Structures are given as C-alpha cells and as structure tokens.
C-alpha cells in the first residue's frame, strides 16, 4: 500500500469570480461591480485563511462484485452501488483520499450570517465549497501522476453520497485511512467536519480513463449535480 500526505499551498488553488457567481445562479453579466468586488476580496481573504490538508492511500487488488454492486478493499466491503462499481471495475488498484480546506472559511461564513450579513456569508460558503472541490482535483491530479509513472491511468473520482452510494460507507473509507492525520472528523451519521472537506475513491488501471461527468451514468433523480447540469 502506498500512502501519503499532500502539502498543497493555498496559492495552488484557483477559484474565480465567475465560479462563485455560477454558484449563486448568476452569470458575470448579471453582476454589478459591487458584487464582483465583494467576491474578489472574499476570495483573497479566504485564500489567506485556509489551511489545506490532504491524505491518500492506494490499495492493490480490489475485488469487484457486479452482482452485489460492491467493491472490497482490505476486507472492507463498500456498497458503492451499480454506477461506481461499474465505472471502477477495471481498476487494478484503488486510491482513497480525504481532503479539507479546514474550518476557517466555514467559521467566517457563519460569523457573517450571525451578524445579519447574508450575502457575505453566502459568498464565503460558496468560495469554501469551490476551494474544497479544487483541492480534491489537485489530489486527483497527484494520483494521476503517480499512476502515469507506472504506465497506468485513472478513473473519475466518486464520493459517498453520490450516484446512490450510501454516505454511511464514509466509515469504511475513514477506517482505511485511519493511520493518517487528515484532520477531518466523521460523525456517527457520516458527516465530515470541517464541512468543507471531500472524501472519495479513484480507480487506477491500464484500461481506465477520466471522462467528462455525465448524468446519464446515474439514475439519481434527486441529485443536485443533475439539476446543475440540466
């Protein structure tokens, strides 16, 4: 098993005003200069505050049961559901990861909200989500580089809670990474704190490739990704 912690500086993360506006259902042409300046300044504040942490481990010889729709890693059975199991079935190894930007932006958002500054609170919240997603993309790229060195490719990344993969499998994922200090806690109901954290699974193998995320791979009619993409 290969494992590691990634030291990613805030400056390596990238989030722009357009992303944040999109998170509020707006285009750049919908926003006035007051809002774009507020977002721009909040991004700068956020990047100064966050403390990223990311850890991963790569496990060889995962076992796939397409009938039961499960993936077994080190005797832990992940009930991923049909979509994730099928997308990863050609994996020769599996990377699990946890990444967080820390609690700072989340706390700032709450503080603004409590002070009655709803807009500022919302902006920080969306910036936090974007940065956490951005951080997990850098983890994904790191895993990709490790795989490429061995002549292997990687799959898309998936997280518990998406594509009908029960969020309760977070406990298995955290158990397999428990020797590492990822600075993320898991509640009994499988929620991560800090909230701006991402955990997930990435397949590694010769016959894998990343593809643009498409909702037609999944039938979860309630998924928020489906709504955003529609």
């Amino acid at each position, binding site marked *: 098993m290969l494992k590691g912690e990634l030291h990613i500086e805030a400056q390596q993360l990238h989030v722009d005003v357009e992303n944040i506006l999109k998170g509020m259902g*707006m285009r750049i042409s919908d926003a006035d200069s007051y809002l774009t300046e507020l977002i721009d300044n909040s991004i700068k504040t956020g990047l100064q505050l966050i403390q990223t942490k990311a850890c991963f481990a790569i496990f060889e010889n995962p076992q796939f049961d397409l009938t039961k729709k499960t993936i077994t890693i080190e005797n832990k059975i992940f009930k991923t559901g049909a979509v994730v199991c099928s997308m990863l079935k050609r994996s020769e190894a599996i990377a699990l990861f946890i990444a967080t930007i820390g609690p700072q932006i989340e706390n700032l958002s709450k503080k603004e909200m409590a002070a009655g500054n709803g807009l500022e*609170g*919302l902006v920080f919240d969306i910036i936090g989500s974007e940065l956490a997603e951005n951080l997990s993309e850098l983890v994904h790229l790191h895993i990709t580089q490790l795989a490429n060195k061995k002549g292997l490719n990687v799959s898309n990344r998936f997280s518990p809670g998406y594509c009908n993969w029960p969020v309760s499998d977070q406990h298995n994922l955290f158990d397999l990474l428990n020797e590492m200090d990822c600075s993320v806690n898991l509640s009994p109901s499988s929620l991560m704190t800090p909230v701006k954290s991402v955990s997930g699974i990435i397949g590694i193998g010769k016959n894998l490739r990343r593809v643009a995320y498409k909702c037609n791979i999944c039938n979860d009619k309630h998924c928020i990704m489906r709504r955003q993409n529609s």
Partner: protein
Amino acid sequence: MDSTELLRKLSECVEMGKVNKDAPFPPAMKGMDGADELTKQALEMGIKPIEILNDALISAMEKVGEKFSQKKIFVPQMLISAKAMNASMEHLKPFFQSGEVKRKGKFIIGTVAGDLHDIGKNLVAMIVEGAGWEVIDLGVDVKTPKFLQAIADHPDAIVGLSALLTTTMQSMKNTVSEIHAQYPNIKLIVGGAPVTDAFSKEIGANAYAHDPQGAVSYLNAQVA
C-alpha cells in the same frame, strides 16, 4: 419631507438594498440616508410602526420577491434587501415586543437530522423574517423530537424543513411523517437543493419551496 414621501423613500431603500448612510451599495444612492436612518426619522415624525411595516417594508420586500421570481434580480440582491429590511426592523423591535405591532405569524425552521448544512436554511430564515414573520430557527442536524417540542411551544406555527443531501432526504421523510402523526394539522414546507415538488408530495409535506420567495408566498397565502 412629508410622511408619504418618507415611507416611499424607506420602501425604495429596502427594495434597492440601501442599509444605512455609510453603506456603499447601491452606488447610485451613495451618501444618502438608508433604511436605518429613515426608519428612525419616520418614528420621530410620529408615523405608526404598523404603517412603517406594512406601507414601506413589507411592500418593498413583496416587490423584491416579484423581481426575484421574474429573474430580474438574484439571491445576492435579495439578501441585500433583507439586510436593509432588518436594519429597519431593529427600530421596530420594541413595538413587536410590546405587542403594538404584530407579525404575520410564526415560522419554525431547521435542517433535518444528519445534515449539517445551514446556508440555505439561513437564507430562507432571513427572507421570511424580512417578510414580516417571526422565525424560530432550530439550527442544523435537528432531530424530530426537537421539531415536536418547538411545535408544542408554538402550536400555531408553520414548519420548514431543509435538506441538502440526497441521503438526508430520508430523514426529512421520517420527520414529516412523525410530525404529521402527532400534529396532523401542522403545515409543513420542505426545501433544499435535492428536494423537488414531486418528493414533497411523495412524503406528505404540505408544500415545496424552490427558493426563499417560494416559502414566503406559501406562508403569506396561509394568512391572506
């Protein structure tokens, strides 16, 4: 400036999101008095608090809600208006407490058990409060007994449940079912990113709110 003009200006401040004189937004109103100063002036002029509330504040927020529904403005502008409204409401608080001015009703809101997301819930709470309702915010990860206790304390309230995760929609379903088992006549509104109108019907909620204004429209219809 007479009372009609003052209320018109106050309404404009709330609609445009001019909180106070120092507020930089909107740029076109820079340096002008905002909702904070104008409400104070209105009270000093002897305008009744109920007139300030109905003729300036709520009417302004209704316009904001209409513009939002028509996609003429977006969440940020709505939040700035809510902030201006709240600046004004601070001056009216003593009149709410004395009973001289009554709110439209009570709204209990919380994010369901197992879900820590509070941003959407907070936005709804702010807009509903700005529309003249008393909001009882139970917070996040709210288990059914806490909702039931709040309903026992405020039996005339309408209840809003929020969920952000597809996985906590089951919690929402359970809570709706348990509340209605004990309080069949309590009105329940559900909302949140993965929630849909079809899901709200499936779980027996009374209404689905796609956005904060949707919640306000439903609430106002109950007291119309």
